């Protein structure tokens, strides 16, 4: 009880901090310097219609690289953690589970390609419309998830997933490095022509990068899910 009281008291303190932040907050009427720059320059510099995408992939590309790395790390660590567990439990995981229903199986067979397609669409069009690599990747992963749900015993090639993941990551970095060589700096997207605003093949390397991000994110999420699903409850 005392603990709750202490926590409440502390939260009151934190709340007070938040409260004064809230009260001190006045929405901007104008875009600030940085945002204005993006609004005005994205189109000609980057050629991406979706400014958020431009920021994510190019201006703050290093963040995104980090972000992808976070997922990569998590997937690796989850793999590491579960790999340790799996060695002991490999025997028991072979036991039979009841098959899922006919409807579910057929449905998933039907849906999976569609979902995959949707995912690809989302990340390929990331520079034009809302959505992009992360969302697309998540959608890709959900296709895998669906397959896992229908057939928990289904075996996915870890190797394939990890190769996909690695190659995507390497390409991302390679493109970034190419930016140093052929353009203004790391992750500069102008190593390809920016094209015209609104076209699919525009915005320099953004679509390419975003696609690989999508693949990578998809692979990473899938790897996590697959790893988790292959473990056994104790």
């Amino acid at each position, binding site marked *: 009880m005392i*603990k*709750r009281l202490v*926590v*409440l008291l*502390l*939260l009151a303190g*934190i*709340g007070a901090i*938040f*409260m004064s*932040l*809230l009260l001190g*907050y006045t*929405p*901007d*009427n104008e*875009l*600030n310097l*940085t*945002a*204005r720059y*993006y*609004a*005005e320059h*994205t*189109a*000609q510099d980057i050629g991406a*219609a*979706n*400014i*958020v995408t431009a*920021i*994510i992939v190019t201006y*703050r590309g290093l*963040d*995104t690289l*980090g*972000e992808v790395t*976070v*997922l990569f*790390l*998590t997937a690796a*660590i*989850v793999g590491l*953690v*579960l790999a*340790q*567990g799996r060695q002991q439990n490999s025997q028991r995981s072979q036991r039979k589970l009841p098959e899922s229903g006919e409807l579910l199986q057929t449905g998933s067979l039907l849906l999976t390609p569609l979902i995959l397609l949707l995912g690809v669409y989302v990340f390929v069009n990331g520079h034009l*419309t*809302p959505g992009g690599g*992360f969302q697309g990747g998540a959608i890709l992963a959900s296709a895998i998830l669906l397959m896992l749900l229908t057939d928990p015993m289904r075996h996915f090639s870890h190797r394939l997933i990890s190769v996909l993941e690695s190659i995507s990551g390497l390409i991302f970095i390679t493109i970034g490095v190419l930016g140093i060589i052929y353009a203004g700096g790391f992750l500069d997207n102008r190593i390809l022509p920016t094209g015209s*605003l*609104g076209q699919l093949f525009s915005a320099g390397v953004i679509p390419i990068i975003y696609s690989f991000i999508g693949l990578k*994110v998809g692979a990473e999420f899938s790897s*996590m899910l697959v790893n*988790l699903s292959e*473990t056994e409850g*104790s």
Partner: protein
Amino acid sequence: MSYIAMTTGFILILIGFYGALTNRNILRMIIAFTVANTGVNLVLVAVGYMRGRTAPILDAAVPVTEAAARIIDPIPQALVLTAIVIGVGVTALMLAFVYKLYATRGSLDISNYTELKW
């Protein structure tokens, strides 16, 4: 609008903290943290919101020339995007720990993991 979202965000953070600090079940603590993370994301986006403007996507409705006057600040959104992904990464990691902790000790109670102290 942004005030509402921001307030909601802050409240979610506080609720999340409360949940994380009072529930002894580690799974619940993680759940509470995801709530708090969602709250943070709300706050972040709300800070970038500007009344009466549109999403930072250039299209027919928002030509390049008017962009500066028409769109809202895109940066917080970009940040949130990153934050969400990072959040899910950390959550997944914590979940992996939960699995492992449970596998070794068979308990989800945080107060059972105090063999290291002082």
